[in-house]
């Protein structure tokens, strides 16, 4: 009986740690920040946009390959949804973002659009007017790289990383 009470007491003490907690605020964060600018004939709704930051850039065989890299490796980081299906994109000019990332060299930063199970790239961080060559960003510990601005132009979508340039629409 005495031992049992000790065991119960131990469990009670364990219960006192309060379980899940918000992430500590003082943690060192780094990443990129900037603005996504929307242009062109915007679809009105039912779309989800996310940001991805990839350490690799090559011709991917399909969008699923990108998603697999997101899931099973740390090669590509993904940001939670920036826009939601219920958000009318037509009423938005721009969205500011802050993307927490591990310190690394990122070769490809893009906005991906989800409609049901279909995905495509709609914006690439690039200073090239055709947005064929993505700009790289070096994220250092404890620092945010600012002004990583991305243009999403529905009249002129960028080439998909896995298809022929210009056929992304």
């Amino acid at each position, binding site marked *: 009986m005495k031992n049992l009470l000790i065991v119960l007491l131990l469990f009670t003490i364990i219960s006192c740690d309060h379980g899940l*907690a*918000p992430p500590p605020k003082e943690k060192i964060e780094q990443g990129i920040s900037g603005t996504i600018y929307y242009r062109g004939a915007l679809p009105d709704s039912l779309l989800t946009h996310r940001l991805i930051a990839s350490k690799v850039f090559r011709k991917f065989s399909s969008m699923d390959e990108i998603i697999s890299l997101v899931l099973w490796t740390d090669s590509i980081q993904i940001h939670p949804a920036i826009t939601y299906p*219920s958000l009318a994109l037509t009423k938005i000019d721009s969205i500011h973002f802050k993307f927490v990332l591990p310190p690394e060299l990122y070769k490809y930063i893009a906005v991906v659009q989800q409609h*049901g*199970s279909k995905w495509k790239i709609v914006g690439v961080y690039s200073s090239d007017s055709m947005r064929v060559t993505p700009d790289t960003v070096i994220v250092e510990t404890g620092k945010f790289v600012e002004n990583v601005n991305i243009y999403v132009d529905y009249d002129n979508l960028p080439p998909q990383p896995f298809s022929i340039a210009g056929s992304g629409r």
Partner: protein
Amino acid sequence: MSFGKIRNKFKILISLLIFAVSLSFAQQYGVLKGTVTSKETNQPLPSANVMIKGTLIGTITDFNGKYSIQKIRPGKYILVVSMIGFRKEELTDVVFETGVEKILNISMEPAAIQVSQVVITAGKREQSFAEVPASVSVIDPQTLQRRNAVTIDDALRQVSGVSLIESQVSIRGSSGYSKGVGSRTLMLVDGIPLLTGDTGELVFESVPTFNVDRIEILKGAASALYGSGAMGGVVNVLTKEIPDLPQTYLRLYGGFYDKPYYPEWKWSSKTQFINGFYVSHSQKFSDFKTLLAISRTEDDGYRQNSRWQRWNLYSQNQYQFTPSKKLHLSLNYLEQRRNNFLYWKNLDSALIPRADQLGDRVISKRFSASSLFTNIVTDRFTYSIKGIWYHTDWRNDVEVLGDRSISNFMDAEVQFNYQMFTEHIFTLGVHGNYNRVRSDIFGRRTGLNTAFYLQDEYKMYDDLRFSFGTRFDYSKLDSLKSQFQINPKLGVAYSYDPLTSLRFSVGRAFRSPSIGEAFTSTTASNIMVIPNPNLKPEKSWSFEAGVNRIVSENINVDASIFQTEYDNLIEAKFVSPFTGQFINVTRARIQGLEVSAKTSFFENYFQLNLAYTYLKPMDRVENDILRFRSKHLFYVNTVLSYSDIDLGIDFRYISRIERIDKEFALYIADAEQRVPTYVVDAHISSIFTFGDVPFRASFHINNLLQYNYVELIGNIAPIRNFTLRIETSI
């Protein structure tokens, strides 16, 4: 074998049955009447079981402790009287003579250990605990009374071997998580199934808790008697007998949620309240008894967008044609409005949903009408006819899609119990149900299931019983290929000595996919769910061996080992990163052991119940642990009783869910954030009188230590909350 030959054999069987019944009718019978009281207080004991050993007849005492048993064949019998909280009484050499009415008043002595003596779920008839070859847990009326269970699932959380992910019940690891769709636990109310027609899920809100007498949980496969749906086990909710005297019952409760433990999680400056009331009145008019009830319950929710509100109208009626023939009719209407919190925004804002979920809500209306006719034809032959019509209609405003689903589920069963000689008790029945669904998500679908089952309980010796049974099921779910299933079982119960009983059972089980699993076509939270018209039934073989021993006057120990082999297990799975589908995913094996102890100390002032379950749920294809399962469950219940005051503390530990689908991380921030469960609930209750009216007041603190955990990823479980409950009965 041709259909004609089967029909002829069936005719012969029926003729034999009628012949046997006629023989039984030809005899004259005795009658037994009396009152059951407590030896300690001399007060009458309602709901005590009075059974004549070795026969099919017995009864339950009424509100005044009175009982009456008709149609007792002349002879010498043993009368068994049992009730939770009292020592079982066995009166030997009770002699009945033709046409004589015998009066026998019985006084029962309080027992130290709260062991339920009679269960009805395991064999579809009343059996004493030692006769049952499977593991059964019982939530007794006192335990239900102590907890302020708003819905049945609140009460199930402390049952050994049972765990819940939100309201999805998993008995010994049988279920993972699939948003409630396709339950492997069959939910019965007074033996009548209560699963929704479209998703095949348990809807706990549909069961009025204030009218529940006890809940029996049959663990392990039970398809040999109950068919599809009982693959993991059965939860049978048994309602109270309608009292003979006019009675009005009132229960009020109110409370609130504490502030979140972390200030970062506070999402509202207002307090979130919980409140509800139940009112019922019962009356007897000659041979007709009725109970009418209304309840309203409301919860603001401890998370943003998680408020719900329910109205429930309930009526239970009983007509007694003769002392041995009666009809029950229950009507139940539930209307619920519930906001829909799907997943948190992230762990930083754990009590706030993602912005796109704000305003999502589900409105549901559910109606059921069920009936049960029982007839004790002789002391060796009884039959029952039962049926239910269960209508559900829900619509949601999730993601502005406005989906709606209407389902009608009809189920009917005729069951015969026949005792041949003294050694064999046969249970046989025919069972069928029909499903009709009109839904934006599932389409227009129908489902049909018919079955025949037979069981023989063979008493080889007084201390050794065998139970053989099998069930034939034919099912056709809309466009899916029709299925024919045979599920046999074998059970052995052996009383080693008066204090020790051993049990062993082995059986096959199956579960047909629900309409929801086969035909869901929707998009929610960016996940597209697609139908699977090639879905097959899942099947399993399971075995269990167990022992129950009364170690001393104060200690009762139960231990069991079990194993289930699954084939074609249906699981929700990502077939591409953002597309989910129910598929026959795997072969799986769940092994485990369960040990529980009921103890009582200090002259029954202090009761302590412990239960530990170890599970090894393995996916044999991926050679990894099955998703959404924990390995360890450990529950502790304590009650300290003094005079009219009860103080109880319940503790539950559930080890961290080992594995989830990694794809969840794509659309739920911090999806991997989960911890073991350590939850402490406390309650204190007391009886007092105001004027001449007796009241029971109780105060409950759930999650006393403010432990934050998730049952389902991205969903913090209820934080600390306080409730005061007052109830009275006049």
